């Protein structure tokens, strides 16, 4: 049996895995099966339990109950075998500040047991991929935040892991750097099993094969981005762009449609059925100048809101 078939087609399986910190249940009996080559995203707000799951899968945290396997190896019984299969780009930028990019990559390749020549070749490719070749010999403490993050991701790839954990890889980055990292992650799709945690909806929507929405340590929904959005197709979102929207008018609407959200230059009304003409007829006599009305596409944010009653970025 080869290492890649030991997991019976599943790169990661969790079995009622839980973790408590005192009275706080950070992860509550999660069961997951992630296929080899899949890009699986865990989506949820801060404190939902995503990083705790990742830490348990990387053998950094002991589960309070339950367990998990990575490529067939139990995380508690055989952590060294698990660690040979995985690598992680942690949430915080994890680099050795006094080393240059070459040395950081060489360190990670070396501690995973790779030959010097192999690490050198792979480092060259990764530095090129991450756009760091020109600064590769500078100590990384002189890098910008975006460059450090790109290096941090490259360090997770140098050991050519079968399972890659990316914990909030674009957190705090500017949109341009974020997009560039998305492109790099997209290039890895299908080649490795990737677990991506994020609280950026666009990130999960654009990259993931499947998404688990996690809230308060539990999986509240699981499926492809399309499946998750389709699961709430019985909901309509009407966007009204208007001037002179008074609080009286908005409060009046809320008596009919409880979910009325104020947005820039207008409102968003969410309900199982929104009667567009009735809304327009209600607002006009109140002096509201309607510029446009439209139906908004359901987003993962809407899915999250419906499932948890919370905004994702709370």
């Amino acid at each position: 049996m080869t290492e890649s078939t030991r997991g019976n087609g599943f790169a990661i399986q969790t079995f009622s895995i839980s973790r408590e910190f005192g009275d706080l249940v950070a992860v509550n009996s999660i069961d997951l099966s992630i296929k080899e080559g899949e890009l699986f995203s865990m989506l949820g707000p801060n404190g939902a339990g995503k990083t705790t799951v990742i830490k348990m899968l990387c053998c950094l945290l002991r589960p309070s109950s339950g367990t998990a396997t990575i490529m067939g190896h139990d995380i508690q019984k055989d952590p060294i075998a698990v660690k040979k299969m995985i690598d992680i780009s942690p949430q915080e930028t994890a680099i050795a500040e006094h080393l240059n990019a070459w040395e950081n990559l060489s360190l990670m390749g070396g501690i995973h047991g790779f030959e010097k020549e192999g690490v050198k070749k792979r480092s060259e490719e990764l530095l090129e991929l991450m756009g760091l070749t020109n600064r590769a010999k500078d100590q990384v403490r002189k890098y910008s935040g975006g460059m450090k993050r790109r290096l941090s991701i490259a360090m997770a790839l140098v050991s050519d892991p079968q399972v890659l954990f990316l914990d909030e890889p674009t957190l705090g980055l500017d949109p341009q750097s974020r997009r560039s990292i998305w492109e790099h992650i997209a290039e890895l799709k299908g080649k490795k099993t990737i677990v991506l945690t994020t609280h950026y909806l666009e990130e999960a929507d654009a990259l993931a094969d499947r998404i688990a929405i996690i809230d308060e340590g539990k999986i509240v929904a699981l499926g492809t981005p399309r499946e998750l959005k389709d699961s709430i197709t019985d909901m309509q979102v009407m966007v009204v762009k208007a001037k002179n929207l008074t609080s009286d008018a908005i409060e009046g609407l809320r008596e009919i449609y409880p979910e009325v959200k104020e947005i820039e230059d207008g409102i968003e009304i969410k309900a199982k059925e929104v009667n567009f003409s009735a809304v327009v007829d209600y607002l006009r006599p109140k002096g509201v100048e309607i510029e446009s009305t439209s139906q908004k596409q359901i987003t993962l944010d809407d899915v999250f809101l419906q499932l948890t009653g919370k905004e994702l970025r709370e």
Partner: protein
Amino acid sequence: MRFMELAKRNFKEMYRDPLSLGLAIGLPAGLLLVFQPLGKFGSTWHPTYLAPGIVIFGFAMLTFSSGMILAKDRESALLSRLLTAPLRANDFISAYSLPYIPVAIIQIVVVFGIGALLGLEIAGNAGLVFLVLFIMSIGYIGLGMILGAFFTEKQVPIVWIAVNLLTIFGGAWFPLEIMGGVIKSTMDALPFAHSLYAARDVMLGGVGFSDIAIDFYWVLGYTIVFFALGVFLFRRRMVE
């Protein structure tokens, strides 16, 4: 030998911080030069008596540096990342200790080299003196591993002051006999004074290994215990 890659990184981290490296090597040598004129006040100020104490004071600085780098890394995301590599606790402790061994050797060579210029003499086997002090230096690095594995970056300097006091009261600066009572008994139970007894007995009395065997094994035993404890504490920190 995967841990050697991490040891290399720690070595680079150390020599790219020239201030602490310079202090660890330069301060003991400087102290010997400063104390040299006091030689006329008695034999305990003579370089032959002072050199072992001063070099051990230098080793205590290695406890600080090695403990700090481990504690600092432990609190950073970098160590979390390193902990996901297939390395065991003893690999980590080896990787954080090894870079300090060459520094300890340089400390011994520099202090004894300067001492020789100032009139230091070794009546017995110089190799034996080196061996005892070298093992003690490893013990101090092992103590650094305990500090780094157990305490935070902010706590390490405070605990290190206690290590320094043990070094000072362990006979590094003045004869332990003048302390007497509980202090002497405590110091006799620890390894620091034994390394000085052994080194001074060989240097001043010209004795052989059999005469310092108890002191030697006392120091060696503690060095092994320090490392075993460092590995034990680090292992406990690897999985929370």
